């Protein structure tokens, strides 16, 4: 006489492919609008980051200016998404996946906006550098940027395609970006100590590297948000998954 099942509460619910297939169907009405806004924001940010990189690599001042002006649209999109989320939550009272989607949309838009801000920062420094002679340091900025951009793109793709596993594997790649940043820091320290006249340029380069490292972090947060959104599993602050680092 023990009765049947009793409620167990927490514990991971495995999201099998059927369940994920079903989740693909929730993007209707206000949730579809939310997704579209996020996609728009992400693609504009992607473009801006690319342009900032081009401005740096090609020492192109006009491109840098374009990045700054385009950022206003991204900022407005972030505000619209937040208003959409508040309106949706208060009028519809969503539950389960829809609720997680609404809340994570807000956080994801914040991540994307932060990435966009870093793009603006990179563009500004690129503009400054374009008016200076080239510093004698060999950095792998392009490679770093490529890695960080790839992380952001793939997080968004995982979001759109409802693929939390793809997002999960992304998280570890941030380590490489961090490592590159450390390499750059050491190289730049050496260069600054060797030739104090290059300090200004080297500082800009340092900050550009830092910005890209930030972009890597934000992209990792995006991936973690996507995992939580679709699996209700919070993988932040998890040592095994790469955790939060500085």
């Amino acid at each position, binding site marked *: 006489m023990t009765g049947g099942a009793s409620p167990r509460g927490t514990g991971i619910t495995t999201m099998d492919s059927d369940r994920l297939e079903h989740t693909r169907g929730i993007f209707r009405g206000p949730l579809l609008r939310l997704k579209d806004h996020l996609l728009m924001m992400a693609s504009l940010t992607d473009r801006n980051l690319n342009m900032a990189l081009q401005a740096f690599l090609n020492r192109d001042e006009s491109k840098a200016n374009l990045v700054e002006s385009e950022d206003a649209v991204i900022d407005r999109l972030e505000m619209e998404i937040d*208003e959409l989320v*508040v*309106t949706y939550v*208060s*009028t*519809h*009272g969503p539950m389960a996946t829809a609720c997680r989607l609404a809340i994570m949309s807000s956080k994801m838009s914040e991540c994307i906006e932060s990435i966009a801000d870093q793009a603006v920062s990179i563009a500004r420094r690129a503009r400054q550098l374009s008016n200076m002679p080239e510093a004698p340091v060999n950095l792998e900025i392009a490679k770093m940027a490529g890695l960080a951009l790839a992380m952001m793109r793939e997080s968004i793709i995982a979001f759109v395609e409802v693929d939390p596993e793809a997002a999960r594997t992304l998280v570890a790649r941030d380590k490489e970006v961090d490592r590159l940043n450390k390499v750059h820091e050491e190289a730049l320290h050496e260069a600054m100590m060797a030739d104090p006249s290059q300090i200004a340029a080297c500082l800009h380069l340092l900050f550009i590297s830092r910005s890209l490292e930030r972009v890597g972090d934000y992209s990792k947060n995006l991936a973690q948000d996507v995992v939580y959104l679709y699996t209700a599993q919070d993988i932040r602050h998890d040592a095994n998954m790469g955790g939060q680092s500085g």
Partner: protein
Amino acid sequence: MKTMSESQDQSRSRVSHGAMTPEESETPGLGTSIAVDNLEFAYGSKPALFDVSLAIPKGKVTAFIGPSGCGKSTLLRCFNRMNDLIEGTSITKGTIHISGVDINSPGVDVIELRKRVGMVFQKSNPFPKSIYENIVYGLRLQGIKNRKVLDEVVERSLRGSALWDEVKDRLDDSALGLSGGQMQRLCIARAIAVEPEIILMDEPCSALDPIATAKVEDLIAELKKQYTIVIVTHNMQQAGRCSDVTAFFYLGKLIEFDLTEKIFTNPSKQQTEDYITGRFG
């Protein structure tokens, strides 16, 4: 229909200007369906509505919310003069104009009024006749007997209330054999069969399970393309999901009347916020 961003611009400006009536933010040219001016209503010697004024917009869904006994159902029933059936009730002051006509003036035939202002009740009341006879009841009242016309109306109304596929093979079965949600959709079909301009719904989903409720709500979204809808509801989410504008009543007074998003995200009156968040009533 305006986009989210346009309405958001307006709602942001509204934050600084205070609440504005929905007509001001409507697409010009759509107009008002029901104009209520300084209405006071009493059950015998007990007053139920105090100085209520609002303009129900045409072609939109208006929700009336408020705690029990606040007068929202009373006001709804004034629109098609169903309160005339209760003894001792009277409009002590004020007017209600529908399409420009004062519906309580002597020249108004209440039968004609009710043909143009349909009603769906809280407790669904399909007549104990066949599904077919339920729908054509209103038409038969007007003397329409042509079988072909009636058949067409039955199909149109049942399609319009998303019930056709479920019952098209058993139109002659008793309406009482339907499930609760189907019965309510049947009542909606019955109401739209006479092609009213306005549909009044008094807590149409209160007796339905969530799936039936969802179907009725989808229906409302479809119906508003053709009719003006006023819906009384206790269910916050329903008001939030279905309606374009919301009116909040308390103790017979209209407290706030604004776009639904505004009322639910940032109401102007503290009372409204308290009610919506469940802090009283």
